[in-house]
């Protein structure tokens, strides 16, 4: 009995000691930052400052504590409790608490361990085709937002299957987000360099695109890659259309961003297809948002064949407020796809599912997209609010759900890639 009591006391006191151990930079914080932050916050990285050394981190300690506690950083807009994505950049609550504990302890440095290496596991595969913007674009230094279209001819001489795609911002400080589209008609080339505010944009938006959203990029994203044996087709002679959002700057800045294509190296058995739910899939038409209104639009799409979902990308503009997508199977089961409670136009991205998600034939994919066109919405581009209809311009509105999928094959849910 005495032995049991002694054991219990020892175990309890050991656990208590662990619980009381002060976290240190080298033991706890550096590995956490290396895993979640350093890919952007390094010299020349997309983050505004480096967080690679103790001094750099300690100089921003309180700020790091605040932005992680409020989940502003790392940037991730989808609800992590509803669906897990492979490109997810969220901290666990325990990690956020650890940072707070380290700050409260006075940011102790601890002892540097020579055996540990915290280099980020960036893949060093070289792209097969590097496509830079044709010319460098100079931004205005008048601290104005700039939304601009650019055309990059691929000059592909045959239909080409790509296993991965990557957007690399030329100016890491100014490129806030970008969307890559594919045009196989070569009739959109006149949009190159055009501002979204240019009325001529409307002439181009009537031309059907081969791929409306090949890829959506925001800071923190790396390449999107597809499961082995699958690939996305880029048509022969296609043009890539870039829609780039530049954040305001007070200094003269230039950008020449790049799209990298990685060809499929193994035989392509299955083609990655795109399903885009559009404004025409909205049940409660018309898609028109009157001033001082907060409407919700409901999409309902019938799924005819079994699908394996690879990724998902919601798209709205400035007055979008929240976005929810799910599927209801014929058996009545609800499959959660994505939930974004606090829509932010500046942080839209392609969300790649951790594992392929099967949507059986006969299911319905449903979307609830809320908009706020009132004067209380600080993101409203109009003061006072105006009626807003459909359009490519960010001050118009859109309601899309872009899904990359494969035709389902048994075992897809188990593919680990």
């Amino acid at each position, binding site marked *: 009995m005495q032995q049991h009591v002694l054991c219990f006391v020892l175990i309890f006191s050991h656990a208590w000691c662990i619980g009381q151990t002060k976290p240190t930079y080298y033991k706890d914080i550096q590995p956490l930052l290396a895993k979640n932050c350093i890919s952007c916050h390094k010299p020349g990285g997309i983050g505004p400052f480096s967080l690679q050394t103790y001094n750099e981190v300690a100089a921003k300690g309180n700020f790091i504590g605040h932005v992680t506690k409020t989940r502003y950083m790392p940037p991730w807009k989808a609800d992590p409790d509803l669906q897990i994505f492979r490109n997810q950049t969220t901290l666990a609550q325990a990690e956020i608490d650890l940072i707070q504990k380290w700050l409260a302890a006075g940011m102790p440095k601890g002892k540097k361990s020579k055996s540990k290496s915290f280099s980020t596991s960036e893949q060093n595969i070289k792209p097969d085709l590097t496509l830079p913007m044709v010319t460098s674009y100079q931004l205005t230094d008048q601290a104005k937002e700039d939304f601009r279209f650019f055309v990059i001819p691929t000059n592909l001489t045959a239909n080409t299957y790509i296993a991965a795609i990557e957007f690399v911002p030329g100016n890491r400080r100014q490129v806030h987000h970008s969307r890559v589209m594919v045009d196989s008609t070569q009739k959109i080339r006149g949009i190159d360099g055009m501002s979204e505010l240019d009325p001529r944009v409307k002439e181009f938006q009537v031309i059907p695109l081969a791929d409306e959203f090949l890829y959506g990029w925001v800071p923190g994203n790396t390449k999107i890659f597809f499961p082995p044996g699958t690939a996305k087709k880029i048509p022969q002679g296609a043009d890539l259309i870039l829609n780039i959002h530049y954040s305001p700057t007070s200094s003269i800045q230039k950008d020449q961003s790049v799209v990298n294509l990685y060809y499929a190296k193994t035989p392509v058995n299955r083609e990655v297809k795109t399903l885009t739910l559009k404004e025409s899939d909205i049940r409660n038409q018309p898609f028109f948002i009157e001033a001082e209104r907060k409407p919700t639009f409901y999409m309902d799409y019938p799924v005819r064949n079994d699908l394996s979902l690879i990724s998902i990308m919601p798209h709205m503009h400035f007055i979008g407020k929240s976005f929810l997508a799910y599927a209801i199977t014929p058996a009545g089961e609800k499959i959660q796809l994505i939930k974004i409670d606090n829509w*932010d136009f500046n942080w839209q991205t392609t969300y790649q599912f951790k594992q392929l998600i099967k949507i059986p034939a006969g299911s319905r994919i449903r979307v609830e997209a809320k908009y706020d066109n009132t004067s209380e919405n600080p993101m409203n581009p109009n003061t006072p609010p105006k009626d807003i209809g459909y359009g490519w311009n960010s001050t118009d509105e859109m309601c899309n759900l872009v899904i990359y999928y494969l035709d389902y094959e048994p075992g897809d849910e188990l593919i680990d890639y």
Partner: protein
Amino acid sequence: MARFRYIALLLVVVINSFAQHHHASEDNNTPAGKPIAIIIFMAVDCPVTQKYMNTIKSIALRYQGEISVTGYFPAGLTRKTEKQFRREYNIPDIISLVDDKAHQATEKFGATITPEVFLISESDKVLYSGAIDNWFFELGRYRVEITENYLLDAIEATKKGNMPPITRTEAVGCFIQKLKGNSTHQH
């Protein structure tokens, strides 16, 4: 070089003088007094500071010879960094940039954010403090159109001898890291 040291010393003296009185304006019955200086806390690597440089320049030019504009850098500002920062944002000499690594100004004014402004009166009172305008409404989120120009409104009101319509707002931007062993309040 000696001239810069003299200016820096002079500014420290002026700050101390301002700071000793800056809480007086919290009493709304106190006559406002004419504005003579704008103090702005900045950080060279803060994206919000960087985005506001154009606005800060335009305010400095608009009130040139009437209201001085001084940027204080709580994370420090070397001569080299100042030169780079001035060149990148084309900052004119009418805006003074001052190293505040020892947090003399930061602590005196209780600044916690960059950019955070303090509008100072001829009688050394803080007439207005906080955000320059309502462009940013939270970290990383900013309006397409600015609808409130807090600092400009405060300047124009106090120039006419009136109280500013708003005397205090919460600045939105990067946190100023408090010095170790210092218990200065942070947000």
